[in-house]
């Protein structure tokens, strides 16, 4: 008999394996993220293969190019109408390409770029053995004060790894607000958190504090993300899916075919509420809302100031983006459950941040608490649950991030022997020493305080207006009161700078390179432009105010 026939005696042919058809990815629309990730990986390679001398320049070059390119693409996409008409969900429902995500991605990229400039600043610290150094540790691994550290400094090492780390963080942030399912959300969260944990630990001066900051940030961050993850699990259990759309449908009860076997989990509101609360908590932790804010002051103070600035700006933007999407796309059906809770959170955040800030003595901690208060203001806009609410929050975030980065950039300039002189008392009489720097910082403070003709006022007005229209009048009143309280400590700093006598042994103001100058310049420019003529950007935010689902 034939071989085949023989073979068929003890074998039987399995039916052919059905193919998993390859997922369809809209690379074009995801390219901003992809570019950044690519740049990050390229940065890693540079670390590996490029000689130490030229790493710095190579890294800066790659990062800047990548950021600019990514921003260009974002603009192109927006111009192409993905923000409005062609808004849709890409990558098999993982990524939403719509107005908010594009707007926020643009903001994050710019913030990243501006932040990068401060990362790359190498004129502030006195040259170590003839090598220009930036504000990052010569060698993160070497123990502070040890010989190895001295050697590293002597050898003129610099931690150029910060650039790829920054890139990774940016990449994660880009995905975070546009994530359209909980898994992507979680991954993005981790992708931008982990690099930040590291960056916090890399300060050149005051390394102890820097490391402490990193540890605290890391442990608390991981703790929070664990909660988030469990929340996600519960939501998954509730809806049988992690995709926003599905969950939303289940919440709205539009899903009809519920398998009776799953009845006890599917659509179980306890799961929904608990899970929702836990995911919410993860996001509130990132935006630094009371009572999940406690990491903020310590980390802001300990982290290298450029990192602080970047973190304070970009993290908030990304996190609020995600928060908005979660509340507006996933849980709108749950409005009546989460609104009161968010009210409470917003109130305690506004008041808490403002009040505790009054007695701060360290400029970075002060700004940290002010950022908490601002988170409260933004939350007021989030609560509005209206298109105006979305656009006002978007506008506020854009305005706020530049002010923040600018402010922290100024902080890097005021230095003494021990590095940055962040204790407020050292800032006394700065206005006499170097009126220009003091004036610039005053502008930022006034913007924080929400004085008219600054971006801060426009943003605050937009948010409060949205809130008031959304029926949150009392919230507005409380917001107004707490901004009055907040004004008090911003003014304290101004008084200190301009009206008190300069100390004889006071700090010096370093003359920065064009990089930091650019950062500060951009900050001031944006502050003023958005304050005087915000119309264009408000329109932009307004067009971008619609989520796709």
């Amino acid at each position, binding site marked *: 008999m034939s071989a085949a026939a023989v073979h068929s005696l003890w074998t039987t042919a399995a039916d052919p394996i059905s193919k998993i058809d390859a997922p369809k990815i809209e690379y074009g629309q995801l390219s901003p993220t992809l570019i950044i990730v690519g740049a990050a990986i390229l940065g890693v390679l540079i670390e590996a293969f490029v000689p130490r001398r030229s790493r710095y320049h190579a890294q800066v070059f790659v990062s800047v190019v990548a950021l600019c390119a990514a921003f260009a693409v974002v603009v192109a996409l927006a111009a192409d109408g993905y923000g409005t008409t062609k808004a849709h969900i890409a990558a098999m429902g993982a990524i939403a390409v719509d107005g908010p995500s594009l707007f926020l991605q643009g903001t994050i990229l710019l913030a990243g770029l501006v932040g990068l400039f401060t990362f790359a600043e190498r004129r502030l610290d006195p040259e170590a053995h003839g090598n220009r150094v930036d504000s990052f540790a010569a060698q993160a691994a070497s123990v502070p004060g040890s010989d190895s550290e001295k050697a590293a400094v002597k050898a003129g090492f610099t931690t150029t790894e910060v650039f790829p780390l920054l890139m990774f963080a940016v990449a994660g942030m880009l995905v975070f607000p546009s994530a359209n399912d909980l898994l992507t959300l979680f991954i993005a969260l981790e992708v931008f958190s982990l690099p930040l944990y*590291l960056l916090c630990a890399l300060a050149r001066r005051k390394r102890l504090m820097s490391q402490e900051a990193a540890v605290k940030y890391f442990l608390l961050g991981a*703790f929070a993300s664990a909660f988030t993850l469990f929340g*996600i699990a519960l939501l*998954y259990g509730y809806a049988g899916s992690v995709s926003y759309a599905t969950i939303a449908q289940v919440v709205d009860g539009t899903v009809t075919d519920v398998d009776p076997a*799953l009845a006890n989990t599917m659509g179980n509101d306890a799961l929904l509420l608990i899970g929702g609360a836990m995911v919410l908590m993860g996001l509130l932790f990132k935006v630094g809302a009371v009572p999940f804010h406690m990491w903020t002051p310590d980390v802001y103070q*300990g982290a290298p100031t450029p990192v602080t600035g970047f973190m304070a700006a970009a993290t908030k933007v990304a996190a609020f983006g995600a928060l908005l999407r979660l509340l507006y796309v996933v849980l709108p059906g749950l409005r009546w459950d989460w609104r009161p809770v968010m009210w409470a959170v917003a109130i305690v955040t506004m008041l808490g941040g403002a009040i505790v800030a009054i007695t701060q003595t360290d400029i970075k901690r002060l700004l940290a608490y002010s950022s908490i208060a601002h988170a409260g203001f933004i939350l007021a806009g989030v609560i509005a649950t209206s298109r105006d609410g979305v656009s006002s929050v978007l506008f506020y975030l854009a305005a706020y991030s530049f002010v923040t980065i600018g402010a922290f950039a100024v902080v890097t300039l005021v230095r003494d022997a021990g590095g940055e002189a962040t204790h407020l008392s050292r800032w006394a009489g700065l206005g006499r020493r170097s009126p220009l720097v003091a004036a610039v910082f005053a502008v930022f403070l006034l913007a924080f305080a929400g004085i008219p003709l600054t971006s801060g006022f426009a943003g605050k007005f937009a948010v409060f207006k949205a809130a008031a229209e959304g029926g949150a009048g009392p919230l507005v009143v409380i917001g107004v009161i707490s901004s009055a309280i907040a004004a008090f400590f911003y003014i304290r700093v101004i008084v200190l700078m301009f009206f008190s006598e300069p100390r004889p042994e006071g700090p010096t103001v370093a003359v920065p390179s064009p990089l930091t100058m650019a950062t500060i310049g951009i900050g001031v420019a944006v502050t003023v432009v958005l304050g005087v003529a915000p119309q264009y950007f408000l329109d932009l935010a307004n067009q971008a105010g619609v989520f796709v689902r």
Partner: protein
Amino acid sequence: MNPVNYLYLAALLFTIGATGVLIRRNAIVVFMCIELMLNACNLAFVTFSRMHGNLDGQIIAFFTMVVAAAEVVVGLAIIVSLFRTRHSASVDDASLMKL
């Protein structure tokens, strides 16, 4: 056996982990507790996936593991550097910054 029990187990593990984070001083242990919480999440995912009869949960579990691994890398790096500096892994010793 009713899969819901696995959920209770997950919740239990999660709580244990959280409690550990709150009460243990040693950074490493705290970190391990966090890992425990993550794994509790994994269990929950898998269980739900089983109940729903779709694979999403199980896939997510893999992602979680990767993330956990990444966290280990970063976390240990930080903790170790802190330990080398202070010669102590106690979380409470790291309290320079306060108020």
